[in-house]
């Protein structure tokens, strides 16, 4: 059976891959929700918050419903290309994305709301188009809030269990993330392994919380 290092590396890879997907989408949607009003905005907001509020097993169920081998989208995909997402590394990433993305959108939204719209207005009059303004003014000013959000989402992705177990399954050597390994080891009565994994994950989480609160304090000092 896989050694100790694999679940740790796997969890890190899953969380980082998830972050790569989450950040661009989160920045875009967070900005949209912060700045624009459009018909159906309230509904979109509900859809965004939903995965945060739904229990992981419900989320896992929906993932299987849509993307399982016989799922609403997964079925046709499998028929056409033989590709099945469920029970793969990417399934673990998708599960992590689904539970963390809403969190990042909310953080990004809050961070962007804290950016004085006049800054963006002035940047426009100085000759910067919407994209240039976003990347050279909005994002740098919202920087700390965005990074804090990303850090917290990374931790959430690292600790994902329920939906991941259902959708990515427990495949030793492929999808057995740290959280799944802990559960598995515990069930098997392998206390030594379980404890080692628990300590590692706890230490990682503590580090994340410390980083997050430090960033938070810095952001508040900036704002004065």
């Amino acid at each position: 059976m896989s050694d100790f290092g694999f679940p740790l590396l796997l969890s890190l890879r899953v969380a980082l891959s998830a972050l790569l997907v989450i950040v661009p989408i989160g920045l875009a949607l967070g900005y949209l929700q912060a700045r624009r009003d459009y018909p159906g905005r309230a509904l979109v907001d509900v859809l965004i918050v939903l995965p945060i509020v739904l229990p992981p097993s419900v989320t896992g169920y929906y993932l299987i419903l849509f993307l399982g081998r016989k799922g609403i989208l997964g079925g046709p995909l499998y028929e056409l290309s033989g590709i099945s997402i469920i029970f793969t590394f990417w399934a673990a990433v998708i599960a992590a994305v689904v539970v963390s993305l809403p969190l990042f959108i909310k953080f990004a939204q809050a961070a962007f709301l804290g950016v004085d719209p006049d800054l963006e207005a002035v940047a426009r009059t100085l000759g910067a188009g919407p994209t240039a303004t976003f990347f050279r003014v909005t994002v740098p000013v919202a920087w700390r809030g965005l990074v804090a959000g990303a850090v917290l989402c990374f931790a959430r992705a690292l600790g994902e269990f329920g939906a991941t177990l259902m959708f990515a399954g427990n495949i030793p050597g492929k999808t057995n993330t740290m959280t799944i390994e802990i559960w598995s080891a515990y069930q098997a009565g392998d206390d030594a392994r379980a404890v080692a994994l628990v300590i590692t994950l706890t230490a990682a989480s503590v580090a994340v919380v410390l980083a997050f609160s430090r960033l938070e304090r810095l952001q508040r000092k900036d704002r004065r």
Partner: protein
Amino acid sequence: MVRGIGRWSCLLGSILFGFACGAGAESDEEEILVSAAASLREVISKSSELFQKAHPGVRLQLNFASSGALRQQIEVGSPVDVFVSAATEHVDRLSDLGLVSADDRRVFARNRLVLLGATDEVRSLRDLQSPAVTRVAMGDPRSVPAGTYARQWLAAEGLWPAIEEKTVLGGDVRQVLSYLERGEVDAAIVYATDAKLVRLEPVVIASGPQAPEVIYEAALIRGDGEARPAARQFFDYLTSESVVRQLEAAGFLAP
């Protein structure tokens, strides 16, 4: 508006509180907690019903999961009265910890392992090695007896650890079965009784010297002191004729 919310909250709160109180109020009945392997769900449920009819005043609380998980729960103090495991090793472990006495364990049933296939690609155990088979479901060998037996079987046939990287581990044998039923995997290793339950024709039935011996044991758990009389009654009932008949009807082999 705020006052209206206040009143509704009080009402909701009292209703929930009432439920909570009500739920724990069955104190005039004796409650016996039974933890049994997932593959025994139907037989044990039926037997419990019959037992409770014959013994009013006893309520059987049933808990089904993988034997390994159940054993873990007992180890950390879950107040289980009767444990029915799909493998003797879990009862052994509890016995080592002093939770089961030597006289209070009996062989309950036997079973056989089978290979189920989702497609025609799977016609024998060897076919699991073919590239057309990408995912094989089995129980987690570390905590699910069906998985331990499966690994034994595959190893005896020279297929382990060769196909280990194709395996998808289930938390109990019923989860393994559901993976196959949902079409998420190409093949699954479960018990003959599970296949019979969902009316699937096994591709291979483990038999002969290579086949692992699947032995279920029922055990009376001691906990703080002696086992309770109602628990002992149920424990004795489990090895009675009527239960053995039900087991055989479901496809189990007699103990």
